[in-house]
């Protein structure tokens, strides 16, 4: 269905609403002490030094919704940027439930989206989005803090990593088998409980469309876009590092962490700059996509290439 221009919140109005919600943003408090999971090897688990206020970014100019909804990578629906726009015809997103479990979860559960919203409340974050293909957008996400869902599952000492699984359904996804199985992504537990990590369910106060990962997707703004698993059906707390789809597809070019870093190029192209989709010219890419102050402490050695591809 084409989006009428009247459906798009005028930016000024949108900003005003955001400002009203500003209190919500600033109170992005984290009810977590870094200790429930024991130490995640080498990785800093201490999240006390995160200053939530620093994450609010009123200076970012959000990309138009029309563009966000028509320039997508969702290989289960085809390899082009336009193909995923047809996903709404086949992918049924309601009812939808997300199963949270895994060896590291003492209290597994099955949630539906409305339940998650009701229980945890919706947060609104305007974030930079940087694709590994060197293009970027600014997306006003609505969703819930991933940390809250993880905490509810009561992580035990075996919860070292979080594994995300996308729906895998040949009936609903014409190109479901491009990677030979469901799309898998993963985070360390410390990354997953970081206040920047969220489970998004909407953009511009509208529910996600199929091509942007409806009904629920991961958002990790300091990482490349392929980490943002879409249409999530399972979240598992696991002990071993999950092999995410792109890592498995091409281990020479993609790894587990995939943090944005302009200094570490993709083997075939530069990551130093990025195209802002919908605009002209390029801009310089920022370390951790501009979120270095918030997340750099998670990685003990910023010279280690492992963290950046």
């Amino acid at each position, binding site marked *: 269905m084409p989006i009428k221009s009247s459906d798009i919140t005028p930016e000024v109005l949108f900003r005003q609403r955001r400002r009203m919600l500003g209190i919500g943003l600033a109170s992005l408090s984290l009810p977590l002490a870094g200790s429930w999971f024991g130490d995640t090897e080498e990785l800093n688990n201490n999240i006390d030094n995160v200053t939530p206020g620093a994450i609010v970014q009123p200076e970012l100019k959000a990309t138009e919704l029309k563009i966000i909804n*028509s*320039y997508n990578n969702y290989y289960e629906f085809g390899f082009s*940027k336009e193909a995923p726009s047809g996903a709404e015809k086949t992918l049924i997103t309601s009812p939808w439930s997300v199963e949270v479990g895994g060896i590291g979860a003492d209290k597994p559960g099955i949630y539906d989206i409305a339940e998650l919203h009701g229980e945890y409340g919706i947060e609104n974050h305007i974030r930079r989005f940087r694709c590994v293909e060197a293009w970027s957008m600014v997306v006003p996400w609505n969703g819930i803090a991933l940390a809250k869902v993880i905490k509810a599952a009561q992580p035990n000492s075996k919860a070292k990593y979080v594994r995300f699984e996308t729906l895998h359904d040949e009936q609903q996804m014409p190109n479901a088998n491009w990677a030979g199985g469901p799309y898998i992504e993963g985070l360390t537990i410390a990354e997953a409980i970081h206040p920047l990590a969220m489970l998004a369910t909407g953009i511009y106060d509208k529910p996600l469309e199929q091509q942007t990962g409806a009904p629920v997707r991961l958002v990790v703004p300091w990482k490349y876009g392929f980490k943002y698993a879409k249409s999530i059906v399972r979240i598992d707390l696991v002990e071993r590092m999950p092999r995410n789809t792109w890592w498995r597809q091409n281990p020479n070019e993609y790894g587990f962490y995939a943090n944005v870093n302009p200094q570490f190029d993709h083997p075939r*192209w*530069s990551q130093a*700059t990025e195209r802002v989709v919908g605009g002209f010219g*390029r801009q310089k890419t920022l370390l951790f996509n501009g979120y270095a102050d918030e997340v750099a402490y998670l990685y003990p050695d910023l010279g280690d290439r492992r963290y950046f591809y």
Partner: protein
Amino acid sequence: MDLRRVLWLIHLGMIIFVGWQGVMAMQAADLVTYLRDVSGRTASYLLLGTLLFAPLSRLWPRLRLYIKVRRYLGLWGFCMVLIHVIVWVSLEFAFDWSLMWQEVNDNLFIWLGLVALILLLPMAVTSNNKAVRRLGFRRWQGLHSVAYLIVPLSLGHYFMAQKVASGEPIVLLLVLLLLMFWRFKYAD
């Protein structure tokens, strides 16, 4: 069919194609990427097409009468390359030369494209009867055999710019390999 009519159809077809792609680009989510990619892709088809003539006219000698079609395929290909480069320099990089230089240095695939472009320039300039006469056929032909370097460079450039080994450039590369095999195995 009369050669002039064939050429006329090619020009008309290309003009309609360019106009249509212009309209499509205005509706695309990202105008710049759309123009950059469609011009690049069209150029690779046209340039590869020019290499089809030698082997095909061996199969079908009458094709030699239409050899001029090759010249215009090449020139239209060059035209697409120009659009590709102009979009890249102006819309994508907003004439930021230092940033462009940094990108060229960081990206092997852009190097390949740049070398192909430089090699293509003298070919485009000498794609007319006057140049054939001035250079003499032998030298002219020598100069234009650079096409056998340009096309692999262009297709390599296209292939390497993709995130995954995607089908289209691979098919084009396979066609190229087959052509090369044919061309040199059955060379006069």
